[in-house]
């Protein structure tokens, strides 16, 4: 998985035939990004799974309301996920950023899984110290792999402002990594 830009124009409502990206292709590509955005944003595996699932359920229910002239489909999905995360933060003030993540089933070899968990634990601890806005921007940038432009669309910040905050925050985290 990379931090490749999220750039799509298709959506389920318009993916009715070959030649356009199918809903299944959208799902395969976007679900991991939404899921990782929520993991980075909330630091809790179980909640990220639940909200990622709810994001796609909501998108699927509202697919007829998606308007491609207003936003890219990936941006629309991230906006839904972001709003769910915000709602969750409003109602849940107690977080267990690491424990739940470490309880998730393993994937790959035990050594690689241990390394992955260790890395996420370190990263999650650093992210937990950031402000809400900084953490959200990094979650969109690195969890979802969104471009600065897409992040600006989702958050309402200017693209240059997004770039500045992300750069500054990552530089600070890197010095502590």
């Amino acid at each position, binding site marked *: 998985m990379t931090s490749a830009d999220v750039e799509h124009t298709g959506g389920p409502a318009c993916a009715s035939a070959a030649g356009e990206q199918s809903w299944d292709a959208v799902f395969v590509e976007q679900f991991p990004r939404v899921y990782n955005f929520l993991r980075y944003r909330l630091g809790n595996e179980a909640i990220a799974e639940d909200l990622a699932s709810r994001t796609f359920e909501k998108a*699927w229910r509202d697919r007829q309301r998606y308007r491609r002239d207003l936003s890219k489909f990936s941006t629309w999905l991230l906006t839904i996920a972001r709003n769910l995360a915000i709602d969750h933060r409003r109602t849940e003030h107690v977080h267990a950023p690491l424990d739940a993540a470490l309880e998730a089933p393993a994937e790959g070899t035990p050594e690689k899984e241990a390394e992955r968990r260790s890395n996420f634990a370190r990263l999650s601890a650093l992210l937990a110290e950031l402000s809400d806005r900084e953490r959200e921007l990094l979650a969109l940038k690195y969890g979802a792999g969104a471009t600065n432009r897409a992040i600006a669309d989702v958050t309402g910040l200017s693209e240059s402002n997004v770039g500045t905050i992300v750069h500054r925050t990552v530089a600070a985290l890197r010095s502590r990594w």
Partner: protein
Amino acid sequence: MQDEFMLTGLRKPRPELVRQVRVRLAEIEAGEHRTAVRRGVMSPPLRWAACAAAVLVLACAFALPSVRAAAQAFLDLFRVVNFAPVTVQTDRLRQLAERQGIDLPKMIGDRIEVVQAAGQPKIAPTLEAAGTLAGARVAVPTWRPVGLEPQRIEVSGTETLRITGNTASLQRLLDSLGIDDVSAPEWLDGKIVTAHVAPVVRIAYSDGNRHAMLIESRQPQVLLPPGADLAQLADIALRVLGVERDEAYRMAQSVDWRTTLIVPIPSDVSYFRQVDVQGNGGLLIGTVRTRGRQPSQVATQLLWSSGDRVFALVGNLRPDELFDMAQSVQ
């Protein structure tokens, strides 16, 4: 900017989670259909007609050892890799059924000669026997819902058809449907298309209440006349199916018709979705009906191709069960 460390926390979602979400989305879609039914959006006869048409169309793709099977294969064109679902208004399906049936090849050639007939399907006592009759190893699911056991294996024979193009016949059909912005191509007239359909194996499973059937065959072979303009034929076929002019043209020009099978889907089936089956493109279609006030799943159908083979799995199982069965076919 050195930010690789920020990617070290990325993780793939658990396969089980992905599967659960897919099933949930399918359930939502089925629920939408049930809601529409409860609201009386669709009249029962129309709904049943649509469901029946969907089953018929899909069965035609692989199942029937008749002219229909090979005729449908006309659009297979050498190798089915992709499935292009095309939503068709039920009124249009009815129109086509009243005129020429929904076999697309009949639109372009009203003379279909059976060079080699498939004959009646033969019952095979074992998979090995079915493989011998079919001339190829028979693939089967290694996973089935508990209680679902094989009941019957049938094999239909090889069939070869020769279709002679008829421009006037096609033009008459276009005229009767009021399609006046495309014309039947002159080059089609008198040209021969030969379709060779390999033996089709059908394995029926049941536990008394739940049923499934795996249908499999080698890829059909189709010989086209030199200079055949597939995009033009596809454009006409899509128009006949009721696709809007601009959309039909765009699709006709952008799809590789040598690897893509058109699957007409009535506009009011419950749901359909392109899916991945063992790394291959597939199409999942579900129809739902109500029993009294209780909704119940009627039929789920999954089409996919793998290498030189094409498969269809149909039944009244849940979509996730059918999907898991398909994933285990080997």
